[in-house]
């Protein structure tokens, strides 16, 4: 009876856990308010909530409430509360023809939002490219084509006069933002715009424009060097940006791939989860260095480093899987040991994994140079949150009594012996000098004779 009961409890608890895992929403460890603000222009999407219901559902399933608002130049929208704290974790701005996003919002508000750790999914298209959104993107080094420009591809499009409406077999460039599993054979990209890039190393290219595509100004009519925005693969259709504070921005030149009519679940979920920092989030809980002996065993007395000591460095990486931290395994993590320049840049090797983290370590000999050294791990990979850790330690020189003495060095025996022979010869000389008189040699010899 007891056994039966136990089995029943066990089965029940397993079933419950499974059910929990199924229903459990993913969420971001960075979530502060669990709210997302969606701004759309009623002149472009007259029935937004029904046209983009799956996108809104994707946002909700990532652990965030959705606040949908129209873009109206006359009404105010609060991004921050009275204490200048963010009211929203994420901001989604649909393409807009409006002059202003809201009476109180401009590109500086978007900057401020990003500076305070807010994430943004910004969409522009040939139909609408709001000025403040564009200016903000320009600040990041992303230059989307303006409203009148049209993306065309004479080689890969059936209806070339209307421009590109879909990208076939798109090649997504970053596996952390669009994972291998969510590749699509066809990407809806109507009324598309393409962006040019300035040199900003924080920008992550996601989708490059086809080599045969161009964007040109429809109003000018002819395609020429004056009327094109991008030509060939120097344009981009999707770009991501992660700032130093890990706040994310994702830009796409069309919104149709997120509409219900062309919704591709894996792709849309992947992008949104990257933007809202559910995916591609790393952390490190451990950053330790210990003095060890030649064999790598920790020493009992940890009294600071001196030159040529041995040191073991350990760190641990975890990755957020949506609901919990799991070990993050990689082979390209490095430790730098720096004084002005890195003296060492060492690969960290995987030592093992615990429930929630993967442990990395390396053992090395401190260089024969004293001063203030920095242990630094800078794991910054496009698409993943930046892991930057450092710790400064002094490395002292040998103390006066830690050098080998002269008699322990065979080479110096020659010099020591020479010195003592000088001293002995000197003593003999002094003795003879005192004893000897001022007699001429000849007379001394004569005396002897």
């Amino acid at each position, binding site marked *: 009876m007891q056994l039966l009961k136990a089995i029943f409890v066990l089965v029940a608890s397993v079933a419950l856990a499974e059910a929990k895992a199924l229903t459990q929403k993913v969420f971001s460890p960075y979530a502060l308010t669990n709210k997302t603000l969606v701004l759309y222009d009623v002149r472009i999407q007259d029935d937004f909530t029904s046209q983009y219901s799956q996108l809104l559902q994707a946002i909700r399933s990532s652990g965030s409430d959705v606040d949908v608002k129209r873009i109206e130049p006359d009404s105010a929208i609060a991004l921050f509360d009275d204490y200048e704290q963010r009211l929203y974790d994420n901001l989604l701005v649909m393409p807009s023809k409006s002059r202003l996003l809201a009476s109180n919002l401009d590109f500086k508000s978007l900057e401020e939002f990003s500076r305070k750790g807010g994430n943004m999914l910004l969409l522009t298209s040939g139909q609408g490219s709001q000025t403040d959104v564009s200016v903000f993107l320009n600040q990041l080094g992303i230059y989307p084509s303006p409203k009148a420009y049209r993306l065309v591809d004479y080689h890969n499009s059936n209806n070339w006069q209307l421009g590109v409406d879909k990208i076939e077999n798109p090649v997504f460039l970053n596996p952390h933002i669009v994972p291998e599993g969510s590749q699509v054979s066809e990407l809806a990209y109507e009324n598309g715009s393409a962006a040019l890039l300035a040199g900003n190393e924080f920008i992550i290219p996601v989708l490059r424009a086809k080599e045969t595509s161009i964007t040109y100004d429809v109003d000018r009519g002819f395609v020429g060097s004056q009327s094109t925005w991008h030509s060939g693969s120097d344009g981009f259709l999707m770009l991501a940006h992660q700032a130093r504070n890990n706040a994310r921005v994702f830009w796409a030149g069309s919104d149709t791939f997120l509409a219900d009519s062309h919704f591709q679940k894996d792709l849309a979920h992947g992008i949104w989860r990257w933007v809202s920092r559910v995916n591609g989030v790393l952390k490190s809980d451990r950053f330790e260095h210990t003095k060890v002996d030649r064999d790598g065993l920790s020493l009992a007395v940890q009294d600071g480093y001196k030159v040529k000591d041995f040191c073991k460095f350990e760190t641990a990486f975890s990755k957020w899987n949506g609901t919990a931290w799991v070990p993050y395994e990689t082979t390209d993590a490095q430790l730098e040991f720096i004084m002005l320049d890195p003296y060492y840049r060492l690969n960290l090797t995987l030592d093992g994994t615990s429930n929630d983290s993967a442990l990395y370590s390396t053992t090395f000999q401190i260089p024969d140079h004293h001063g203030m050294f920095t242990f630094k791990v800078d794991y910054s990979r496009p698409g993943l949150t930046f892991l930057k850790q450092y710790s400064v330690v002094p490395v002292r020189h040998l103390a006066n009594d830690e050098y080998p*003495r*002269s008699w322990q*060095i065979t*080479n*110096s025996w*020659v*010099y*020591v012996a*020479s*010195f003592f*022979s*000088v*001293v002995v*010869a*000197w003593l003999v*000389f*002094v003795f*003879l*000098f*005192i004893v*000897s*008189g*001022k*007699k*001429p*040699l*000849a007379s*001394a010899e004569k005396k002897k004779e």
Partner: protein
Amino acid sequence: MKKVAKRAAEKNKKASGKPYHQDLAHSVTLAYKSYLKGLQENQKLRLIDTFLAFLVCIGILQFIFCVLVGTFPFNGFLGGFISAVGQFVLTVSLRLQCLESNQSSFKGILPERAFGDYIFASIILHFVVIHFIN
């Protein structure tokens, strides 16, 4: 202009009838003879010069060893070499003060005083070297 002057000087010399090397050899032998004469007259000078020769040998030996084997205990090399050189310098100073012909330069300094100074300076040198070499 200089060349002209030089040639004129050469002519003058040739006119005197003696080439350079003979001139040089003559002056060297003269110096050597007077040196030997000085030695013969003074036992202390001989003693000092022997000691100086010994110091030069020790210094050269250490230098050759350092060139061949490497500078590794550099303080050892410096200590050993400087002890030889320093002792040489001090001994030469003593030699200068011993010469009667130099008495005018060292007025009021007795030979005993000079020798005392020499011992004092040498002991300081040895003290410094023995600490530096370790």
